[in-house]
């Protein structure tokens, strides 16, 4: 995680107060390599002096827009970019056009959301895995790195689909993940009609991770919606 926090982040926004808020929030979370710019020109100059690992760009800047700025920045760097937009849901430019943005945040936002997105993009782009790629529930340990479950001292391997499903559920632990989202993760687009297959896989997963598969305590069914992985480790 240290590697992640050391990444250099360039924040570009024309509102100095917001710049301070953004850098304070990131600084508080442990991102110490932050530098800021108020205009496109300043941003280009700053990027030339020291290359950034992530750009946090406002869409509207006094001397141009964030998209044009990103294009210029990308000439010399392939660092990911997150846009800050004040347009809300209506900003199709980010959603639809795929202008090379890795994510976007709609103003106003909470520090929590900002950190979450910055961390997620950095993790994805720089392939930084979280140290904790395993979890334990009621005497069963799931190790994603090994792709296996250890139950009662026995090592049970997970199949590829089971691995994907369990990972997806674990990423959204204690929340309902819909059948559609699970099928989409495991079988991709055009997954329709996979519900029965999904049910079979869930049943097998329960046999592997539940002590009493017929009375599941962790891998629960949300009737009509999907499944939920309940983990009370926090």
């Amino acid at each position, binding site marked *: 995680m240290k590697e992640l926090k050391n990444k250099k982040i360039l924040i570009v926004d024309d*509102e100095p*107060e*917001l710049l301070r*808020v*953004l850098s*304070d*929030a990131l600084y*508080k979370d442990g991102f110490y390599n932050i530098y800021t710019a108020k205009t496109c020109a300043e941003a280009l100059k700053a990027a030339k002096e020291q290359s950034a690992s992530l750009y946090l760009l406002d869409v509207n800047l006094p001397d141009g827009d964030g998209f044009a700025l990103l294009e210029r920045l990308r000439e010399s760097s392939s660092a990911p970019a997150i846009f800050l937009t*004040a*347009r*809300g*849901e*209506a900003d*199709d430019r980010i959603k*639809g056009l795929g202008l090379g943005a890795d994510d976007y945040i*709609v*103003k*106003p*936002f*909470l*520090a*929590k959301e900002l950190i979450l997105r910055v961390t997620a993009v950095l993790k994805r782009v720089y392939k930084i895995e979280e140290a904790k790629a395993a979890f334990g529930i009621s005497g069963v340990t799931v190790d994603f790195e090994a792709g296996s479950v250890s139950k009662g001292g026995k090592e049970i391997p997970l199949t590829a689909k089971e691995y994907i499903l369990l990972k997806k559920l674990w990423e959204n632990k204690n*929340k*309902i*993940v*819909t*059948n*559609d*989202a699970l099928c989409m993760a495991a079988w991709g687009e055009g997954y*329709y*009609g996979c*519900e029965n297959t999904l049910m079979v896989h869930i049943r097998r997963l329960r046999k592997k991770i539940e002590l009493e598969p017929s009375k599941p305590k962790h891998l629960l069914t*949300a*009737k*009509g*919606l*999907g499944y939920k992985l309940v983990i009370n480790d926090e």
Partner: protein
Amino acid sequence: MNKTSLKIFVCFTLTSAVITVILLCVNFLGYSYIASDSDGESSKKTLALISENLTQTGGGFELAEGIIPDGYWCVLIDENGDIIWAENKPGDIPSHYSINDVAKMTHWFLNDYPVFVRAEERGLLVLGMPKKAVGKYEMIYSMNWFRTLPQRILKILAINLCFAALLACVFGFRLYSRLRALTGGIADLGRERAVKLPERGIFREISASVNLASASIERKNAALAARDSARSNWISGISHDIRTPLSVIIGRSDELAKSEGLSAAERKKAETITAQGLKIKKLIEDLNLISSLEYDMQPSKKTAVKICPLIRRVASDIINSGVADKCELELDLRNEKSTVSADESLIERAVFNLINNSVTHNENGCKITITQYEERESVIVKIADNGKGAPQETIENIAEIPKAAHGLGLPMAYRIICVHGGRLTAKNDGGLKIQIELPKL
């Protein structure tokens, strides 16, 4: 086919046929009037008058004065062919006639004088008219001609009628096609479609007026749309401008709320600021959406949306957010393949609003049932709870955007469904019962 134009066309043809028949009758009478000639007839009467008034005296005949009109003459020929009495006799009239002479003149002329002859016991009374006073023509018709006359008249009438109808059809069709263009144009005008009719023919002026009206409607609509979009742009501009300062407010209050240097009470106050800031954020989002929906804007990015996964997603999100802990959600989605053409994020918003309404308005919990099925060409989604229901006023004014942001959920959902060509009905019946109907793709 255009009904009105067809009616006009039929009326026109029938009227033409009736007019033709009336004209034929009038013309027939007129013809008889023209054909009648009183002069020819009156000569015969004069002859009769002369015959009555010609009296035999001693050795000759005598006629009262003034019976023979001016320029006329009269003679009486005995059975030997000699003139035994004459009045005004011109010099070029012979005084003796052979049988041949008599036969020749009987029907025709005597030395170019038109003559009328009356056979009497006294002899042959001949009335002469001035030269070129009348024409005489011989008319001979067979009895067959007389017998078939009524049939022939009927035949001619029928031919006339057909011809008139044919002509009326031809001219009527031309009129009809022009009328059709015209009525089509006026109908389009009613639907506020652009109209450009060719400005010629008998409807030139009407066409020009219709075109003018269309142009002015278009101009007005454009002005209205410009005003609406100006307002809409202004709203989105303002909300855009509010977002940045709001980010600062929320960012800072959020920071204060977590600050360890502050007392618990102060941190609580900072939290309140954050919560209120987030409320403003939601209001801005609603304002933007409402302002675009208010003008019945068509959803800009329609895609084929599978409704069941959408319902599951929204329901899961609401459960996951923890607000629905007291509620029980039951889903009965029957047509897994149901697809509608829609802006996914808008429909998601509508479904969210409806479920969220039931959750937030029933603080003590309720059971929410979501049923989905297909009926004919529609996809039906029913969202029903067994809670306390919505205020009657809200249900009655579902189509109105409320003046305040409070109670926006239902009207917003209503608008969203409407701009997708669907229907939303709401009623209180042991809880709030909502039915959404969207056209099936």
